[in-house]
């Protein structure tokens, strides 16, 4: 057994860290405060081929897999970006490139992948609805066939990055949830050209004021008789669930990577402060009440990382990875939250000042415990699907 990362992933670690070394915690804090996309970092990542890592080489990408994307996400996050890294890597390299590389039709791949590789085309993903979050199969956004088109109606919520996206992966029901047998049947994923849809007046969106992760807005999306060509179906009509799992598992893995990086930043910030801050004539880190929780966080980070890499490796090998992806997401998010919480405690009252990075890290870490899936649902998956315990719903 060999735990060494492949050379491609080591190259990603080095290359992304090199770029990130010029952007410090203050830079990311300013992006958050100004609610501003990290354009400079995005441009550098695009130029170096770090966004297109998982795009096949024939389309101008790096020809790598989810492992390399996860390592890139973790490295960017750990450099100080924390939650912001999730959007950089999940929206376009994850939702867009990974999905189309695996499930896109020939024209979809040819039309989109080269732009996704260079970052010129950006994507977002619309699944969650006001009445369907954890119960994703219960969505009600409908797509009705009309000749060579689908006519879509519905509402989506918490759709991040619509503002920058050229294309949206829109999850619809071509068979209503109440009639679908099995429940996974009748889902259809559509590629929607966002600027065109907005221009036609058939799609509109409104940002939701939020507690953190403000480098990218998250939105309510309203769809009213939007016409989408049938050629824009990703995968097969009614068989969208197969595509969906290949979106949701990478999403969990990349968000786990982002959380893990966030945990690393919080721990680094806490350890530095615990070494420097002197109270009663010694650094506070000499007190075990400060030191032990930080040591515990370190242990949790290392454990979560093992599961993260394993899950990504399974996905790349085309093997089932649901259990591992869920465990990685659960443990990395918990590590991030505990790291941020203990960083807060270590900083004492100073943590409450926006002049320290802790408040941002705390807000970023908190969302990981509920999005894109709650901890409870992850535990429920393990309880019912892995342990075979009876369902409560």
């Amino acid at each position, binding site marked *: 057994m060999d735990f060494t990362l492949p050379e491609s992933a080591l190259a990603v670690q080095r290359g992304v860290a090199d770029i990130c070394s010029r952007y410090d915690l203050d830079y990311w804090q300013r992006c958050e405060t100004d609610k501003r996309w990290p354009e400079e970092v995005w441009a550098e990542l695009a130029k170096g081929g*770090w966004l297109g890592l998982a795009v096949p080489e024939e389309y101008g990408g790096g020809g790598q897999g989810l492992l390399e994307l996860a390592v890139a996400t973790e490295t960017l996050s750990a450099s100080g970006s924390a939650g912001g890294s999730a959007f950089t890597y999940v929206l376009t390299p994850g939702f867009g490139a990974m999905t189309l590389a695996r499930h896109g039709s020939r024209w979809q791949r040819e039309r989109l992948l080269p732009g996704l590789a260079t970052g010129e085309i950006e994507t977002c993903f619309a699944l969650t609805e006001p009445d369907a979050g954890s119960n994703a199969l219960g969505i009600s956004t409908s797509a009705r066939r009309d000749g060579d088109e689908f006519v879509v109606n519905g509402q989506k919520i918490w759709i991040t990055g619509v503002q920058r996206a050229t294309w949206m992966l829109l999850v619809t029901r071509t068979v209503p949830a109440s009639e679908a047998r099995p429940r996974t049947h009748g889902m259809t994923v559509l590629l929607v050209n966002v600027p065109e849809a907005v221009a036609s007046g058939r799609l509109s969106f409104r940002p939701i004021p939020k507690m953190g992760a403000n480098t990218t807005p998250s939105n309510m999306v309203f769809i009213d008789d939007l016409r989408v060509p049938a050629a824009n179906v990703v995968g097969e009509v009614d068989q969208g669930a197969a595509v969906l799992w290949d979106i949701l598992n990478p999403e969990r893995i990349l968000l786990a990577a982002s959380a893990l990086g966030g945990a690393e930043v919080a721990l680094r910030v806490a350890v530095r402060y615990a070494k420097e801050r002197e109270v009663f004539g010694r650094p506070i880190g000499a007190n075990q009440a400060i030191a032990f929780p930080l040591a515990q966080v370190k242990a949790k980070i290392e454990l979560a990382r093992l599961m993260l890499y394993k899950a990504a490796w399974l996905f790349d090998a085309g093997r089932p990875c649901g259990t591992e992806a869920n465990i990685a997401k659960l443990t990395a998010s918990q590590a991030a939250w505990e790291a941020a919480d203990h960083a807060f405690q270590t900083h004492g009252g100073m943590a409450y000042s926006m002049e320290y990075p802790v408040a941002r890290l705390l807000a970023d870490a908190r969302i990981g415990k509920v999005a894109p899936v709650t901890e409870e649902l992850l535990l429920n998956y393990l309880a019912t699907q892995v342990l075979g315990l009876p369902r409560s719903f």
Partner: protein
Amino acid sequence: MNIVVCVKQVPDTATERKLRSDDKTLDRDAADGVVNELDEYAVEEALRLKEAHGGEVTVLTMGPDKASETIRKALAMGADKAVHLVDDALHGSDALGTSYALAQTLKKIGFDLVVLGSESTDARTGVLAAMLAERLGVPQLTFANKVEVNGTSIAIQRVTDYGYDKVEAVLPAVVSVVEKINEPRYPSFKGIMAAKKKPVEKLGVADAEIDVAQVGLAGSWSEVADFAAAPPRAAGTVVKDEGDGGVKAADFLASKKFV
């Protein structure tokens, strides 16, 4: 055009740097090795010259095995191949010894243009370019913030205290660059992966026909007699502004001969 860029691995300036107590040379194990920052500008300039005029960029490094990381970085940025001068006999060489060893190597591998950073962030002697040019018997064009090659002639803007001088010469030549000259590129993913397959030739003192009496600690003309940690910074002077702060500040600066 055959361009050779000299790069040096130096201890990361962000970490604590130490000298070894036994032979008073740099403790390379105590800090992470990174590419000397100014050499990255040299690599970038060499790559731009190659992109504009064609040819080949060769990286030349003198240093222990560990310095191969530095070579890989320069190759990842886009250099074509590398020569690594590595030999225990070179350990402890001063600027004079280093310039001799590099000059011998350059004579062996050939060059139209040698580009290097104007100084290293560790020793900071800033004399290597001049020494190299002298030993090679070619023109030196130092402290360049702009380089232009036209056929067999080369012109630079040489940064001075009062602006810049225009210096021209005929190739082959040695150029040292300052950080204002360009913005070094980051290695790309494909660049890093391709760098692993690029040729790196390792040379020892015998291969480069280096006389060991002129290199290493024993062959160095300069000697580190002693060293000590820098004293902790003394408390500053606090000037209280009682309506005359400006005058006090001016007096203070005048007393230090700043104004």
